[in-house]
């Protein structure tokens, strides 16, 4: 029966499933992007295969435990503890359902403390209706900040014109008061500097520079300058990790074959021991070769 579902049907229903699951344990979550953004007029239609959930940072572990209890499957391999290695989201699937459910502990580009950023978003949250159920979502202005950060995250500096068309559509859907709220939210969640150029291009006045998050801002800019360079991603995780987390980080970076993008985690599960061994060797060689480049890139930028 599920195979005959359209992706739109399944994604709408999966929002309701995830919302109800989290509500059963009083875990505060906000649903972002995808059909929620469409229902708020921030995006035109279009297929989304994900359910994106921003979770109360204080309850992320509870949320992960909960979905495991329900038998949902961690998409990136059961052996991967995404949160422990600095990934901002963990993806799950509900057995038999096509959409992935991305559980975010924070949102990249919101440089403020994740808990305070979440509380700021939660304080103004709204309810949208999907699949005839209540789905908690950020207020439209707050949601715009998230959509803009998401649009920029995978674009190198100078490429942001690619992101501007959908952002202009979203911006046009906001009233003047909400546009002011965008700037306020960006400032309060630490997203003002990441979004400064975009806000100016949209005609907003972002106000004085926010220099509270200089280290995190440098990391955000570096990740954008090296979009797609996994060595830089891992180096950033290394810098952000506590010492006791670093041994696992090294093991994941060089040895955890389930994280190697040349195959899906599921394909790696089925690989022979020889294939996995060869994959690990390639991964380790590639990783070691990338470290000097990542470090040099960092020094070159003086950050």
């Amino acid at each position: 029966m599920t195979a005959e579902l359209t992706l739109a049907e399944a994604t709408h229903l999966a929002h309701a499933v995830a919302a109800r699951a989290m509500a059963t344990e009083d875990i505060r979550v906000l649903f972002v992007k995808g059909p929620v953004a469409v229902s708020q007029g921030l995006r035109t239609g279009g297929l989304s295969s994900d359910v994106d959930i921003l979770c109360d940072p204080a309850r992320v572990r509870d949320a992960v435990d909960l979905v495991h209890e329900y038998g949902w499957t961690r998409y990136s391999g059961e052996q991967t503890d995404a949160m422990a290695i600095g990934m901002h989201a963990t993806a799950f699937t509900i057995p038999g359902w096509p959409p992935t459910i991305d559980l975010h502990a924070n949102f990249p580009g919101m440089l403020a403390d994740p808990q305070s950023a979440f509380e700021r978003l939660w304080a103004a949250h709204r309810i949208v209706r999907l699949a005839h159920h209540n789905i908690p979502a950020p207020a439209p202005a707050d949601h715009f900040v998230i959509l803009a950060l998401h649009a920029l995250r995978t674009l190198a500096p100078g490429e942001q014109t690619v992101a501007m068309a959908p952002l202009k559509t979203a911006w046009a859907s906001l009233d003047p008061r909400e546009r002011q709220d965008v700037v306020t939210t960006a400032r309060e969640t630490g997203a003002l500097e990441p979004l400064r150029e975009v806000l100016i291009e949209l005609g907003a006045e972002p106000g004085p520079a926010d220099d509270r998050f200089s280290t995190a801002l440098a990391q955000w800019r570096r990740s954008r300058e090296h979009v797609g360079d996994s060595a830089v991603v891992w180096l950033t995780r290394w810098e952000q990790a506590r010492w006791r987390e670093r041994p696992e980080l090294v093991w994941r970076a060089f040895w955890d074959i389930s994280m190697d993008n040349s195959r899906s985690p599921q394909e790696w599960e089925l690989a022979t021991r020889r294939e996995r061994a060869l994959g690990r060797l390639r991964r380790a060689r590639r990783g070691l070769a990338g470290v000097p480049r990542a470090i040099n890139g960092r020094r070159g930028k003086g950050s």
Partner: protein
Amino acid sequence: METIGRTGPWVIDESVAWVHHDDRVVLVKLAPPFTALPTRLDATGAILWSAIAQGETLDELVTNFEGDPDEVRRGIIDFVTNVLAQGLIGPADRS
């Protein structure tokens, strides 16, 4: 004599999520462990479900279909009985 539960109106149970696209309805009951697969209602079932969601009674539902009224009525009662038994709908609060 027909009971209230069989003459309507009814309400969709609040634990049911559903979408209506084109000529079909897809629904799922939201209950732990939240791994139930969706159920699809095509054509007649989708029409009935949507009409029930709008608060139509059994007599009103019958008017949505052509054919022998008694036969149509029996078919609708079968459908309603089935979804009532599954807890997908319940009698509307008439207070």
